[in-house]
């Protein structure tokens, strides 16, 4: 985050705080404060800040005054003002700083300069406090933000819908719940009570999944009707299972007849057959497999190992990585 970097690079920031910069900073703040309320409803904004708007204005003035102090380079006042700055109003401060950071990096330099010029241990502490403290509220603020945005936008949608329903004489759905539910709009002529909505949601879910199954199973696209599609799906599954049975019988028939030189066989046959079906990169890896004992399956490690292997270019499966409990 820019803020942390700004605070961390405090020592490196030497440039004098120009009046222009401080002006920009305060302008940003004003811009933020004035534009935010229309965006969200006033209630949510105060909820975000956890304090009335007036205090935010105070904050604004405070930063103005602090910037002016920086201009005059008074070392004593800066740390003391900075400390309550950090302690009392830190949620809002971090929030506003957060927002400001997104718009400009000037904010960080500003505060960095303020604390840097005094060159005491105290500003470093407060800066660190701000730093640490910023991390937590930033996350919670973003969460609160989202929720509030949902809430407020849900309210907006509600209002919009009601307006539209009154003007256009269409049935609009009743919003059963505000936040975590899907807000739906009913089509014309459809029932809108809760049961029908739930039923419709359920049907839509099932239909969506059926569509995916249809795409998966060959020859299901032309068929109309759930029952027939299901028939096809069942047939497909049964045929696949039967194929597996056949193949396993083939493998069983083949196995005892082959000498136990599977390594050499597979290694030699690697390129020709496997490339057609898989991108058979390397089956020479099989040569490295001795006969293992029985090991527990390790789900997580194998994938990582494989990933690492593939990135190296030569996919070598170490025997102790490929484990399975039979």
């Amino acid at each position, binding site marked *: 985050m820019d803020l942390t970097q700004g605070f961390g690079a405090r020592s490196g920031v030497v440039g004098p705080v120009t009046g222009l910069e401080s002006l920009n900073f305060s302008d940003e703040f004003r811009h933020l404060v004035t534009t935010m309320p229309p965006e969200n409803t006033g209630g949510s904004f105060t909820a975000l800040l956890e304090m009335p708007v007036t205090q935010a204005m105070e904050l604004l003035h405070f930063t103005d005054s602090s910037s002016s102090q920086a201009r005059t380079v008074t070392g004593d006042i800066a740390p003391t003002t900075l400390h309550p700055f950090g302690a009392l109003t830190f949620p809002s401060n971090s929030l506003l700083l957060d927002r400001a950071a997104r718009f400009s990096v000037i904010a960080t330099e500003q505060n960095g300069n303020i604390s840097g010029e005094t060159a005491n241990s105290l500003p470093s502490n407060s800066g660190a406090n701000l730093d640490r403290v910023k991390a937590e509220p930033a996350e919670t603020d973003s969460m609160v933000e989202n929720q509030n945005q*949902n809430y407020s*936008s*849900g309210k907006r*949608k509600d209002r919009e819908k009601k307006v539209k329903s009154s003007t*256009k004489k269409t049935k609009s759905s009743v919003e059963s719940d505000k936040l975590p539910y*899907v807000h*739906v*709009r009913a*089509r014309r002529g459809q029932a809108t009570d809760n049961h029908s909505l739930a039923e419709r949601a*359920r049907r*839509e*879910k*099932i*239909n*969506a*999944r059926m569509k*995916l199954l249809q795409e*998966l199973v060959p020859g299901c696209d032309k068929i109309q009707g759930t*029952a027939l599609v*299901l*028939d096809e*799906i069942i047939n497909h*599954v049964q045929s*696949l*299972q039967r194929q*597996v049975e056949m*193949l*396993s*019988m*083939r*493998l*069983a*028939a*083949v*196995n*005892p*007849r*082959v*000498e*136990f030189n*599977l390594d050499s*066989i597979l290694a*030699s046959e690697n390129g020709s*057959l496997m490339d*057609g*079906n*898989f*991108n058979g*990169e390397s089956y020479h890896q*099989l040569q490295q*497999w001795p*006969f293992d004992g029985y090991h527990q*399956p390790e789900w997580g490690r*194998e*994938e990582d190992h494989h990933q690492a292997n593939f990135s190296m270019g030569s*996919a070598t*499966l170490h025997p102790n990585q*490929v484990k*399975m409990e*039979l």
Partner: protein
Amino acid sequence: IENTSESSPESRRKKPRISEMAEIESRRINEESLKRWKTNRVQQIYASKLVEALRRVRQRSSTSTETDKVVSGAAREIRETADRVLAASARGTTRWSRAILASRVRAKLKKHRKAKKSTGNCKSRKGVTETNRIKLPAVERKLKILGRLVPGCRKVSVPNLLDEATDYIAALEMQVRAMEALAELLTAAAPRTTLTGT
């Protein structure tokens, strides 16, 4: 059908119509799962594990004399091994894979009691369905059949059953491809090597 034009994509995503929502949801689930059964890495993992598992099977059954019975018994073992490897490749995210991996334990434990219990259950079930009910609607009957086909999905809700079936079909297809390739490989190689006994 009216569409409210929402500018921000986030709000559009949060307030679509039901059908869109359902479609998005199922697509998200399924595209992930289907694609993962088609990646080359998955296939390689499966193939390599299959080979190793087969070796162990062969090692175990190599001592016995080769008769047809043993071949079919070996076939069953191979199929079960292949299924287990397949289920292991699923990484425990799907119900059927968990059921396959668990069934082995269950089968071992219930070997003795299975014979008695199953016949008793079958009888009672058949009696109930024939006497008490007229035929269930066709779709529901078929869903039940599908639930029986997919391992471990008999009492699963309909949308979940369809999800499981989707993943199961994709996995089966991969299994078939892998086993076919392996069988080709081995049968092509077999004549070259010295035949032992048979």
